[in-house]
């Protein structure tokens, strides 16, 4: 058990193992994304009230899920780094922050586009949208804090603390925003809670949620691997890797 734990913390071991799984994960992600997108765009029936604009749900909802889940991934990685001083956890955290910020942005953006045909306006100060905006701020805080430190260990610890403080505050922020919204809810805009979806609409959504979980894992692993290479670039094994992948890098640098 402890040997396994120890090995899990080794960046080199992670790099090599994840390298073996990566192609399969990439294929699975792509397949799920293609199936889900086609199903959602072309085969699911349109919504009776919203028409075809409801098809944005197949991006918006999975992305929102992962934007929120990603914050917990980041915070847990930070906590692991703080408690057990596992460097790999800090690399995962470094990888998770910009990814989460991008997904939160995407959730806000698709939500805004969806809002235009549905509510007639791009931006509504709705509870969920406002919470998402706060989440974006929380992510950006971690990203910027990470970049402003010169010492890597200090940056890792500081970001971990910030992420944990954010985590315990997220429920409070969400509840308060919820409360605030019920207080100010304008009469003209009635946001129905999720009405029971028709199975024909719901099945592609499930596929898309699964697809985006795979996508998140894929990008997180890609980012972590790059971070590993960057931090371990003075070690022998990374240098060996650079030599053995000489042909590949030659190819990409020629393309650029």
């Amino acid at each position, binding site marked *: 058990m402890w040997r396994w734990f120890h090995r899990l913390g080794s960046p080199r071991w992670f790099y090599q193992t994840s390298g073996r799984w990566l192609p399969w994960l990439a294929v699975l992600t792509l397949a799920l994304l293609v199936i889900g997108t086609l199903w959602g765009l072309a085969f699911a029936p349109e919504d009776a009230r919203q028409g075809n604009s409801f098809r944005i749900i197949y991006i918006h909802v999975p992305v929102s899920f992962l934007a929120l889940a990603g914050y917990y991934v980041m915070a847990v990685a930070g906590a692991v780094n703080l408690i057990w001083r596992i460097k790999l956890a800090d690399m995962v955290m470094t990888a998770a922050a910009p990814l989460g910020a991008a997904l939160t942005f995407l959730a806000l953006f698709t939500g805004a586009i969806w809002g235009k045909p549905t509510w007639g306006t791009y931006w509504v100060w709705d509870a969920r949208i406002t919470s998402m905006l706060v989440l974006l701020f929380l992510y950006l805080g971690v990203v910027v804090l990470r970049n*402003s430190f010169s010492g890597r260990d200090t940056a890792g610890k500081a970001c971990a*603390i910030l992420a944990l403080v954010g985590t315990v505050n997220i429920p409070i922020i969400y509840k*308060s925003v919820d409360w605030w919204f019920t207080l100010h809810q304008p009469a003209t805009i009635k946001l129905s809670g999720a009405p029971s979806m028709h199975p024909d609409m719901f099945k592609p959504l499930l596929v898309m949620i699964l697809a985006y979980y795979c996508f998140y894992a894929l990008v997180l692993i890609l980012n972590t691997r790059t971070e590993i290479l960057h931090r371990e670039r003075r070690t022998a094994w990374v240098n060996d890797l650079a030599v053995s992948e000489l042909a590949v890098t030659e190819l990409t640098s020629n393309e650029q």
Partner: protein
Amino acid sequence: MTEALRTPASQQAVQERLPPELLPPGEGFVGILKRDLLLAFRHRGELANPLIFFIMVTALIPIAVGPQKALLSQLAPGMIWVMALLGTLLSSDSLFQSDYADGTLEQLIISPQPLWLLVLAKISAHWLVTGLPITLAAPILGLMLALPEAGYATLVLGLAMGTATFSLFGAIGAALTVALRKGGVLLSLIVMPLYFPVLIFGSAAVQRVVDGGSAGAPLALLGAVFAFALLLSPFATAASLRAGING
């Protein structure tokens, strides 16, 4: 000035009596509190900054939106709260700055007294010199912005808890950014999301009373957020200081 840093009367007395590890934890708290208040008192110009900011910027609002009384009284609760938030936020930046610059912070960290308690003392001092004056000045601004009469007591009570919560959360941000040269803007970004609940409950409380309702629920929620911050912040701030300085 450095003289004032080294020999506040209380600290000297403390040092003469016992070695620090034998002192009860309360001594450290009182010592830091007295020292910070004394320092703030000696720099009265800086002391007044957040307050002046609070008053001046609030005075800009009627200039910007027009002097109609109905409009102003509608905006008043929210505006006063936002300005109190900004006033506290601006001053949070300097919470650990001078202590970091002259090495006092390192002394605090290695001292045998529990760091979270010393941090709490610093936060308390910060609130006494920024949050409290803002709270006390708020009714004057309420008058200027035509806040309906019913709102004043709630405004003051809410701001007392709210500015304390701002100071508590601000301390976390200040500790995380203390070693950075351009910490100010970053501090705002880090701390702002944590301020959301306070702003929501605080301004809603005033709004409710003005509208003829009861402010009980939002004030109670505000108190809960304050209690939560009081539990969380000293430890998070102490951890941040350790991480930011040792690392």
